[in-house]
């Protein structure tokens, strides 16, 4: 039987993992790396590149490269890269297929099923889009689980003999999640989940990029945001700067020949950690609210938390660790590799799903991350006020769960009742997210308020909502599954997209290391000047010649040289 894999489909990086010998193991990709960049790029001849080479092309070919598409899940945004047009699920599917091929190569068996993680704050639409992406990549999505739950699982697996309350802070590339869990009697119980779907490491990069742009405007009078190539390079530089500032108090940025207006300018500046943190202050503030909400939902004061666990690459930033420490009054742990924790947890969930012996005694319960309810009209002060949100299944409810609430008609002789389903925490429906609607018909015509209708929400482990409505007086029940949501692909569209995927020419896995070495060297070439540039140019030319020779041994050797030369140069650049 082929194993179920756990996949962390991240905003910046994605990983695939399996539980092997009772231990979660992250599988390497074609480059031997554990992290596969969530990036897609299209070459001149229409060949699709996924992962590191695509990411390296973000600065050299920004208009043909897609990054951060996870943020578009559940929307109808499409991106046109060269001759191809992709939706967010299609781009995600390309990443998933790359991971699938990598896992197949690493395990030597076919992979058909997967558990995929999503941010807890992903709504119904985004979860469905993730499912579609799996489908397009030829993976049966066995389970969608929340990223913080996965991180908690990876952590809890090793601590299931203890009794403790822990908080997991997960700052990913594009999302922030807080989860509070309690481990007791070997049960990992998620107590509450909160987060910000639009706050992550990328926002820290963007803020830093703005700071750099402002510096360059003041010092050189150039607008680096006007040209997409220049903007992409500044953005890339900001990301590197952020990384260096986690270790150093001050770091410099130098950008050579930045295309601005008609000419090109070379610019440089340096930023101290303090200056960066000042610019990030609003973002750090935004991290606080979900933490407090999760605590309030769990009914806990910060002092009751026994352990604080940091996961997600962005938690390497000292300011985030400091925020965690000051909020909880204790030193945060990095017990798991921050980039890998979620994928590891996903593989634990996959093993649970498979019924593996190693996890036989593990039980995990999760909660609904948002409130689900319907729109109602209410009579207030003699006025009928429509559009009020009436929660049925509240956030924090342990799932799977089923909740029922009774509603009545509001007009005399009312025979139809529209059920508009929303998710969110606001009192007014228009501030919440609409999931779908459906009409209950053939209600016996009687006076206003005389016909009660029971509306039941059933929410399963995958976060799929089923609704049924029962007219109490005659017991008639109708059922409805929220899936006909706008933006969701229909069966036919899925079919067409799947066929389209098959037609794509994907860069072969075997030669991916070559392509990556070239793309990375190319990206660096743009940043250099003088003798270093000439030298790198020669190294690239030598590698191109080796590729022509088709001599595998020679190619490997020259590639090794090019890669180490590129790395050395990049290091010296800083």
């Amino acid at each position: 039987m082929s194993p179920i894999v756990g996949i962390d489909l991240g905003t910046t990086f994605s990983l695939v993992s399996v539980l092997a010998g009772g231990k979660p193991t992250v599988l390497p990709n074609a480059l031997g790396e554990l992290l596969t960049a969530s990036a897609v790029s299209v070459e001149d001849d229409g060949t699709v590149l996924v992962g590191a080479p695509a990411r390296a092309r973000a600065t050299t070919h920004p208009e043909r490269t897609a990054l951060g598409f996870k943020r578009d899940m559940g929307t109808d945004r499409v991106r046109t890269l060269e001759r191809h047009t992709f939706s967010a699920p299609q781009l995600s599917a390309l990443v998933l297929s790359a991971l699938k091929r990598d896992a197949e190569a690493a395990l030597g068996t076919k992979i058909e099923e997967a558990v995929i993680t999503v941010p807890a704050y992903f709504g119904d639409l985004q979860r469905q889009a993730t499912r579609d992406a799996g489908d397009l990549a030829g993976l049966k999505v066995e389970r969608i689980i929340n990223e913080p739950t996965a991180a908690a699982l990876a952590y809890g697996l090793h601590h299931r003999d203890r009794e403790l309350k822990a908080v997991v802070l997960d700052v990913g590339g594009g999302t922030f999640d807080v989860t509070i869990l309690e481990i007791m009697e070997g049960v990992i119980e998620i107590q509450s989940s909160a987060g910000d779907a639009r706050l992550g490491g990328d926002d820290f990069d963007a803020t830093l990029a703005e700071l750099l742009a402002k510096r360059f405007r003041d010092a050189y009078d150039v607008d680096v945001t006007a040209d997409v190539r220049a903007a992409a390079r500044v953005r890339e530089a900001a990301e590197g700067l952020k990384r260096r500032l986690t270790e150093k108090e001050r770091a410099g940025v130098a950008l050579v020949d930045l295309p601005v207006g008609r000419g090109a300018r070379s610019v440089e500046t340096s930023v101290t950690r303090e200056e960066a943190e000042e610019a990030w202050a609003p973002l750090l503030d935004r991290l606080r609210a979900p933490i407090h909400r999760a605590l309030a939902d769990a009914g806990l004061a910060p002092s009751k938390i026994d352990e604080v666990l940091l996961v997600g690459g962005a938690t390497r930033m000292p300011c985030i660790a400091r925020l965690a420490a000051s909020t909880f009054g204790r030193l945060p742990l990095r017990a798991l590799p921050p980039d890998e924790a979620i994928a590891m947890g996903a593989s634990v969930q996959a093993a649970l799903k498979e019924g593996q012996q190693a996890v036989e005694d593990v039980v995990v319960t999760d909660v609904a991350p948002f409130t689900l309810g319907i729109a109602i009209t209410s009579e207030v002060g003699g006025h009928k006020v429509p559009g009020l949100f009436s929660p049925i299944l509240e956030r924090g409810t342990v799932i799977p769960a089923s909740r029922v609430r009774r509603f009545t008609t509001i007009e005399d002789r009312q025979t139809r009742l529209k059920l508009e389903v929303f998710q969110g925490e606001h009192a007014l429906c228009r501030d919440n997210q609409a999931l779908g609607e459906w009409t209950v018909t053939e209600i016996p015509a009687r006076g206003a308020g005389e016909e009660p209708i029971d509306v039941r929400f059933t929410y399963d482990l995958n976060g799929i909502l089923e609704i049924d409505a029962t007219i109490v007086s005659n017991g008639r029940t109708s059922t409805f599954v929220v899936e006909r949501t706008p933006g969701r692909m229909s069966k036919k569209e899925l079919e067409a997209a799947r066929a389209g995927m098959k037609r794509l020419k994907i860069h072969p896995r075997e030669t991916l290391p070559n392509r990556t070495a070239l793309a990375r060297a190319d990206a660096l070439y743009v940043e250099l000047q003088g003798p270093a540039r000439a030298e790198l140019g020669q190294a690239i030319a030598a590698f191109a010649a080796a590729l022509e020779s088709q001599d595998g041994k020679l190619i490997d050797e020259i590639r090794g040289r090019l890669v180490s030369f590129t790395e050395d140069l990049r290091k010296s650049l800083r």
Partner: protein
Amino acid sequence: MDLEEARHELGLSADATPDVVRRSYLRLLKTRKPEVDPEGFQRLRGAYELLRLAAAIGEQAVPEPSPPAPESPALDPEPLAPESPPFVPFARPIAAALAEQDLDRAHTLASETLDALLDVPSHPVFVEGSAMFAVVLELWTQRRGRDARILTKKIRAHFTQTGNEARVLQGGAAAIWAILRELTALGKGFPDELTAGFARGVLEGSPEPGYQAINRLRKTGEDLDPIRDVLRERAPSLFALYGVAMQPPIAPTRYQPKRERLFRFGYAVFIIMGLNVFRLLTPSSSNPPPQAPEIRLPNIPQVASVVDAPPSAPPEDPNVFKQPAALARGVATTATELHENAVAKSATTLALLVEGGACTAAARELATMKKALEPVPNARRVALAPPIEVLRRSLVDVCHLDPQKVP
């Protein structure tokens, strides 16, 4: 599922402590994994939540489901309180006491928990949302204005921070919240006794305590005019309810108003709602009697029947125009606070018109105001529509207009 069945499900006796209940639940989970046996898991979880709730509020308060309502939501207990947080249990007994109109008990319970509450940072405190309103009202009745203001601010901050609006500010709770904010806006100079009376009125679901407080104040010889002005400016809803009683000269019958007269003012609804809101918060709300409609925004009273009042006697002197003018200014103040400038502008114009006795023009302006109200979002319209309705009635009365013809 009743308590007995819940205990049976978990294999427990009646004297099991919360910790024993929890451990028993966790142990049984292993045989009913949500993964493998979703139905069994949900039954187990339901039993556990019911027992946990019982422990949190004291067992006698948990309603046994009444036999004639087998389809009632009690079959499926709502998780009323999260896992034994430090402050959850307090609000519910207060709400219960208020619903039973046992003010003394509510008072004691609220006092006991208040000091603890005020010392704690805002986040874990207000888990129970609107039950907190009861506590603030209780503070006002105790004339602890400073504490009440602090708590109101904290609640407000909590709303913003947690996005808990949906749970809290529904229908009647929104109205109570509006009153609470008006009480807070009255300022430190406002007589404590009146604030206390108003708060008690909301708690009791009757305007009487407010009127009694006004009477007592009048007996001390206090000049009510400046107080009235404060009320009009900062608390339009309270002004609409109590303004008449404070208007000089007061004929004995006017400051001992009959209920009928009170009900002419749409505002009575706010106060009556109070009781209903708190009733909803009590444990029994999870198991309503079968004839009670569970929703259509929960149990808000039908006020249409009481708002209609016989037309009043014709006005004797130009002073009568002062009342609709004052009401219009009240609307203007509220609208300005809500940043509904079109409504505010229209209300100010209307106040000037009616003060000058320009009845027809005022009626036209009212139509303009109603139009300006249309695009206003519901949340704010809820705050504006009732005062405008009061204003309309006052205008119809004072100007002898045909109610059918005034929008």
